[in-house]
């Protein structure tokens, strides 16, 4: 999704919000770049795009993934063992031409180390914008530490997505929601990423708590099936985020390209079903936004 050298403007940062509003309810997928190789990642991303993903998060692997459960840890290990580098990652993004906007999900140290100078976020963000990425998610960067990255993202027209946890409340929640760009990543439950068999009660509580904020909300951490997607959208989410369930396919399927495309389609159908039942039974359903 290279932007062909067009000047980057703040408008580029709205790709993400537009993708969610126009494709409401949205499917957001995560896979780890380089698992098991960058070439295969390219084919997988294209499959997800065809299957119905409205936004695609690509993980740039870091050796110490503290927010990740066993499935994504294993994917990151495979990617690092395959020799995935920052430059290799950006070259993959340079080549990708997807309909869905792309985001990078990585840990803060990776962002600090890219480029010549250490501990400077500028070069990473500039390269991300050049490659055509629309946003950044950093699971170990709470809003309190995010000023340098947010400034760089604003300068280059990228969204910086913040995570809202079940423990995020009160004044901190207000301030995070006022700074979110793109969407609010609603963490469905305490703990790490990983496919689960049900939708947590914390998801319902979090969405109720966030209902008053006029920011798109997407729920991740544990979503693995179309029925979960339906339930989460019914509970008020604008999108669902699925990662580990896709990585399980990559790790075990004989035909991951076909299976990823089918899984994306199942999840998207689930989300749409949730949206429909909402419009059918609930009087105060949100207006579908026009771009």
């Amino acid at each position, binding site marked *: 999704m290279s932007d062909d050298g067009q000047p980057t403007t703040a408008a580029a940062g*709205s790709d993400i919000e537009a993708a969610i509003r126009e494709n409401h309810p949205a499917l957001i997928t995560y896979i780890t770049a380089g698992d098991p190789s960058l070439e295969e990642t390219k084919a997988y991303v294209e499959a997800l795009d065809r299957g119905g993903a409205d936004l695609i998060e690509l993980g740039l692997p870091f050796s110490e993934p503290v927010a990740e459960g066993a499935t994504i840890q294993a994917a990151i290990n495979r990617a690092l063992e395959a020799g995935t580098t920052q430059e290799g990652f950006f070259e993959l993004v340079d080549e990708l031409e997807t309909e869905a906007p792309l985001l990078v999900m990585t840990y803060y140290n990776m962002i600090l180390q890219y480029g010549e100078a250490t501990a400077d976020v500028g070069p990473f963000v500039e390269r991300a914008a050049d490659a055509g990425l629309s946003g950044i998610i950093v699971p*170990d960067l709470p809003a309190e530490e995010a000023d340098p990255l947010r400034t760089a993202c604003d300068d280059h027209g990228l969204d910086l997505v913040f995570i809202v946890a079940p*423990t995020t409340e009160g004044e901190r929640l207000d301030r995070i929601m006022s700074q979110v760009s793109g969407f609010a990543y609603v963490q469905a439950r305490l703990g790490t990423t990983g496919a689960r068999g049900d939708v947590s009660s914390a998801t319902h509580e979090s969405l109720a708590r966030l209902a008053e904020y006029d920011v798109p909300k997407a729920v991740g951490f544990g979503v693995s099936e179309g029925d979960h997607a339906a339930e989460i959208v019914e509970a008020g989410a604008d999108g669902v985020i699925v990662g580990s369930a896709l990585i399980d396919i990559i790790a075990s399927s004989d035909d991951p390209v076909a299976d990823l495309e089918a899984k994306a389609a199942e999840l998207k159908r689930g989300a749409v079903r949730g949206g429909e039942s909402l419009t059918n039974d609930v009087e105060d359903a949100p207006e579908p936004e026009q771009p």
Partner: protein
Amino acid sequence: MSTSDHDHDSIRERDSEATFGDYGGQYVPEALMPALQELEDAYERYVLNNEDGFMDEFRERMRDFGGRPTPLQRADRLSERYDREIYLKREDLVHGGAHKLNNALGQVLLAKYMGKERIIAETGAGQHGTATAMAAAHLDMPCEIYMGRTDVNRQRPNVYRMRMNGAEVNPVDAGSGTLKEAINETMRDWATTVERTHYVIGSVVGPHPFPKLVRDFQAVIGQEARQQIQQQAGRLPDSVVACAGGGSNTMGTFHEFVPDDDVSLYAVEAGGSSLQIDEDEGVAPNSATLSTGTDGVLHGAMTKLLQSEDGQIVESHSVSAGLDYAGVGPELSHLVETGRVTPVNVGDEAALNGFHRLSNLEGIIPALESSHALGYLEEQHEELGDLVVVNVSGRGDKDLETVLEETETRDLEAAPDVEVFDS
């Protein structure tokens, strides 16, 4: 219109309390931020302001259960050998055999005051794990310890010690199965159970307020030593020497001396077998973070790290498991950056000789970690002035197996003959 066009009011004024110059901070998943705020609050109330007599109870328990104060001992043979006054701060005499209990007991007690119901901790060699298990047993708190699979297999006595004290030990299979992975896994547990669990971090590392909290519990080392040296030698020392892994015995020893500009402070890191990083293998055959590391974020803090140019953390190495860590406390990074602390290092062999020398000359078997400080003393005593304090952070009984193995395969000048047991 981009939603990123919002105005730039920060979520909070960057909290200068959370940093040491450019280092420190709180780089953790959002789910943990409320717990860190709760801990900051508890730190201020109980530790800084002694609310409900917390610090009084802590000191009393460190006396009755922990064996404090520890002596500052003049080392007669070393003083003769180096032709200057050498004093040893005897943290090896703390209950459990190392300075680790100062922090573990402080944090478990704090967790109790905070109403937490469960203790978790990481451990590398098992020293912090054993100290935490002891403290948890003493204070009747359920306790789980995360330990890398490799470490579990090579530290079986410590694993059993923890279990004898009632702790559950959870092996961690990720990565190379050592300390770094154990910390990652403990953070994951904490992110899941944060509402009722306290994470007793094992050194002056991690997100704010841990580096300050752990330092303040360990600062008793330097508080005692500073008084003792003035009583026994009549003045402040010319230099203070301590080994540095994460840096808790180091900051604990140095903290009280930091304002004493005429006292030189030396942090001795593990030089391992070489100071180079092998980028292809992602391995540094040393743990000399302060001497050779670059700035980055690991385990919640901006600090000096052993990392590849691409930002991946590399595996560190040292003959001493307790120094074997790719990061270091942010306050030490800052004190090195400002020139107040001098980072130095000695390799595996110098440490092993330091181990044997102290055993042989003074009748004290030091931990391999502490032996790095003694190795530096042997190499550079002429730089250290006439009056030197060395922190003996722990005792070396735990290291005998390693030392036997290493002594058999090397030609160590200070070691007695291993073959002596042959018939």
